[in-house]
């Protein structure tokens, strides 16, 4: 859509092919959350995948840290128009976590400490597309950025990368999570600008 605002020339001219439409590069790391930052001790932390048959696959922090760990360098894109390129993370791939999980369902609801939820199709979590991350830029993940561990689904807008994640529940059909009930798109592909529904 071409619509010119008088007098506006813009300053952020350095376009980068890695920047999806409508996004602006930032150097810092903005924080967006709906409520207070939960304080979660790793001694109390656990991650659970619950299947349709009611089976829970649960990892304590120590069990989780004993899994194969991957280094991930990736771009991240927030629905509020900022992007950060080449961010460095460490985490466990969802492929690893799902290795022993028997499910026929195609959708998941991610649940967080503090009550946040977000829905993610299973195919957006597997095949090297998503991690449960516990380090950012070589440091333990700050609580305000989701520490001790958050979901990392970098090919979707960052509200899908649930902070303070504690598990996934398998769902037969897609259902909206927290921001999805509050106006955000059900899937959230930055390249298609799936911001709001």
């Amino acid at each position, binding site marked *: *859509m*071409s619509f010119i*605002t008088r007098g506006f020339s813009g300053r*952020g001219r350095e376009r980068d092919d890695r920047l999806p439409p409508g996004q602006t590069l930032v150097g*810092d790391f903005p*924080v967006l959350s709906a*409520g*207070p930052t939960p304080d979660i001790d790793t001694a109390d932390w656990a991650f659970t995948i619950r299947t349709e048959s009611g089976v829970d696959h649960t990892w304590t922090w120590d069990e989780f840290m004993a899994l194969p760990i991957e280094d991930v360098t990736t771009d991240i894109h927030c629905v509020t128009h900022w992007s950060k390129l080449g961010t460095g993370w460490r985490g466990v791939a969802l492929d690893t976590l799902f290795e022993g999980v028997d499910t026929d369902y195609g959708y998941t609801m991610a649940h967080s400490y503090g009550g946040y939820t977000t829905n993610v199709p299973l195919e957006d979590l597997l095949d090297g597309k998503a991690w449960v991350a516990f380090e950012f830029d070589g440091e333990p993940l700050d609580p305000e950025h989701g520490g001790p561990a958050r979901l990392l689904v970098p090919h979707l807008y960052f509200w899908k990368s649930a902070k303070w994640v504690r598990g996934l*529940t398998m769902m037969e059909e897609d259902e909206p999570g927290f921001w999805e009930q509050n106006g955000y798109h059900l899937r959230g592909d930055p390249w298609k600008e799936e911001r709001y529904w």
Partner: protein
Amino acid sequence: MSADGIAAPPGASPLAAIRAVPRAGWHVATVAATHRETPNASRIELDVDGWPGNAAGQHLDVRLTAPDAYTATRSYSIASSGDSTRVVLAVDKLPDGEVSPFLVDDLRAGDQLEVHGPLGAFFVWRPAVESGDDRPVQLIAGGSGVVPLYAMAHAHADASDPTPFRLLYSVRTPRDVYFADEWRALAAASAPLQVDLVYTRQAPDDWPAPPGRITREALEAAVIPAAERPRVYVCGSTGFVERVADWLVGLGHAPGDIRTERYGGT
């Protein structure tokens, strides 16, 4: 793994909740007026063709397009609410910003831009007759974070809503108070509102407290006690919101009662 706290809006199924939110769209906006709100901020009144109205606390995206089709989009809280197609913003100029300096310094009546919205269905307040919730409301703002809270207080006064409202507002100096005259009028209106100011850099001459960042003790003294189960809306910079929300939880407020909006990044 049941959801608790913030993720469980009461009373509605998820899909019913989705249908309850009006669909956001792009609209052409014409600037009706701008004026200096504070030394660093402007109030911008927009006439928005086809605007469906908005709830107090919602935001919108502003899109500016340059002659060579370059665009820049930013999110701003809305200072107004209701059915009107007149939409009010109050924009703080960010140092090194690309969009906010243009909006604050260059935009003038008659200019046009695009807006997308209304957006957000969580950081909103609706009168008790609509929401069925008559719990008291505590608003806590840092700097320009007062904009969506002003919309809530204004909607509260417009509705002559009996819900007790209290605002705690942290600003650098008296000149940095957004909506200074309006707060006086709202505090004098029939809807109950108490306004408490904290000055961080410079206070008025006769002010009882020296300027300085808000403390946990000052916060405790100026907010509705946790025992009264207020709904709390906190908006400001990330550091401000993190500090305040942590203290509130420490003072016994349930995390699920505290809604936050952080102004971070660019």
